[in-house]
């Protein structure tokens, strides 16, 4: 441990890594044992996290016999694509899949317009009543009307079996609103002032100066909303009673429900359901899993932005 005193420590962006490098000169045996155990434990955490996904892929491509025998773990057994073809040829699956895409695009677009414009207005100190408006948004994070009043409202507005039932009640996520507001709060004032001296109105400043310079935060917010709407199912389950309106998450939910109710009856039905279920699940998570490595960092930065300064 004495050696470490001599090590120069430079403040870097990744202090943890720096701290690691300073001790590299000489370590106690105990710490080396810890490092090995730590690596093993973290590898296990990673594998356990991935296991359901690997199992899903394996089951989607396995034959039913092997699944029934419980012999499918992370590699497909009795490789085949017949179930795949079965699900792919179910027109309802694709109708519901298309619905999910449409709902996600429309809902995200509306949510972005409302969130961005409100966040910008709230970021302006000269806006009289700003505190009241921010407080009004924050209250909804702590307290909400509840399931039944919401249900009655949506019905009273005539939104049943329309896209508005799932788009409008969730059009602003207050957390996202705060993230955008804090971004606009820190937007360089001089740029906006210069633009308004050049004769731009508030609209001009907002659309032609602020928005083009906020692409990163806008992209992050689009991702937040898109994932939220892609994954949502309960609103649709609650307000839609026509199968061809369901998003794919409700299609899946109904598969799961069917599988659970047959589990007690006999195992054959379960096998078929389990196989089909895997394929449908795989196709539903595919867009997110494929995009995930590229968008992950935006999510992380979004969370930080929202928490460091709200």
């Amino acid at each position, binding site marked *: 441990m004495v050696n470490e005193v001599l090590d120069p420590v430079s403040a870097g962006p990744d202090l943890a890594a720096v701290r690691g490098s300073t001790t590299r000169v000489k370590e106690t045996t105990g710490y080396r044992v810890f490092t090995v155990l730590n690596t093993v434990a*973290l590898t296990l955490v*990673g594998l356990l996290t991935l296991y359901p996904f690997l199992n899903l892929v394996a089951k989607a491509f396995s034959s039913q016999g092997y699944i029934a025998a419980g012999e499918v773990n992370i590699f497909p057994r009795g490789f085949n694509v017949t179930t795949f073809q079965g699900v792919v040829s179910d027109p309802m699956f694709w109708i519901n899949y298309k619905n999910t895409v449409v709902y996600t695009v429309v809902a995200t677009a509306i949510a972005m317009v409302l969130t961005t414009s409100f966040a910008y207005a709230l970021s302006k100190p000269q806006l009289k009543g700003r505190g*009241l408006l921010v407080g009004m948004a924050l209250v909804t994070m702590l307290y909400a009307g*509840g399931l039944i009043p*919401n249900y*009655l409202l949506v019905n009273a507005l005539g939104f049943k079996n329309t896209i508005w039932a799932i788009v409008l009640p969730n059009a602003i996520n207050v957390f996202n609103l705060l993230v955008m507001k804090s971004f606009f709060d820190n937007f360089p004032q001089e740029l906006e002032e210069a633009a308004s001296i050049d004769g731009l109105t*508030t609209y001009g400043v907002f659309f032609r100066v602020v928005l083009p310079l906020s692409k990163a935060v806008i992209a992050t917010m689009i991702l937040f909303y898109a994932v939220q709407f892609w994954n949502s199912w309960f609103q649709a389950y609650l307000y839609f009673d026509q199968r061809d309106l369901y998003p794919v998450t409700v299609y899946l939910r109904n598969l*799961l429900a069917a599988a659970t109710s047959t589990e007690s009856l006999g195992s054959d039905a379960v096998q078929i359901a389990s196989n089909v279920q895997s394929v449908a699940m795989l196709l539903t998570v595919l867009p997110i899993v494929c995009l995930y*490595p590229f968008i992950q960092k935006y999510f992380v930065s979004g969370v930080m932005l929202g928490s460091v300064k709200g």
Partner: protein
Amino acid sequence: MSLRTAAPPVPLGQPDVATPARPQPGREGWARALRKDWRLYSLAVLPLLFFLIFKYVPMAGAVIAFRRFQPGGSIFGEEWVGLYYVERFIQDPKFWDTFANTAIIGALTLVVVFPLPVVLALMLNEVRVRWFKKAVQTVSYLPHFMSVVIVAGFVFELTSLDGTVNKIVEALGGDPVSFMQRAEWFRTIYVSSEVWQTVGWGTILYLAALTTIDEQLYEASRIDGANRWKQTWHITLPGIRPTMMVLLILNIGQFMAVGFEKVFLLYNPLTYPTADVLSTYVYRVGLTSGQLSYATAIGLFEALIGLVLVFAANAISRRITGSSLW
């Protein structure tokens, strides 16, 4: 944390704290503000309408907990019935069963799920091989992005009679268990799925807090002869304590808001004895049996408990640790 800078609501007609430059109070100030900043206000109109209609009308709509509601009638009910529905749920043994289930699942989730991200973040913090750290982080965040329907699907797949969990049970010499049909397993399964989905993502804020700890503290402690474990205990943990407290408050506030969607997807009549929580009971009473006022009364009660819990946790945290949400 995200709530800290919330300005307190300014009463109408008084000067906004944020604009000390404009002294005129009252109506005149508002007229001026509207005339001058009407473009800015126009940006806020639609969002304001959204909050009023989709957030505040339902809050007012909760009044049907105290009014008789008629299908097809006003969403605010027809006539006052006082505390009739409140008395009814207080005398309803099923209400108390679901109340207990909610508290137990909430407590288990809090106790198990809250500390794990801290542990995982500390473990990740000790990793020096950067690609390995990145890889573990990337993988552990992934479940956060999965729909609750997908998570439920995974649970069904893994716990089915021919699923992986039962294969392990058999390999260890046990008999397969139909986990999802057995009430005694529900809580374990629920909490496990929460761990799988939330722990990785939960490390983000801790990892961020860890990078802000002053490196000189570690140096000084090494000079004083502290080993890694002591450094972790005396420097790292106190360094992330404010983050822990804020997240703890948030978690306690959501204590009773046990994930409705997940329970709803995972439970079935066989597991009701342990799985049925207040929110699912509200759903069945209200939307399956059509007792809308009664269900609203229970929902209102649940929301109020949540509110009390947040305020209490915030007050206690401010008293003890000095860090709080507001």
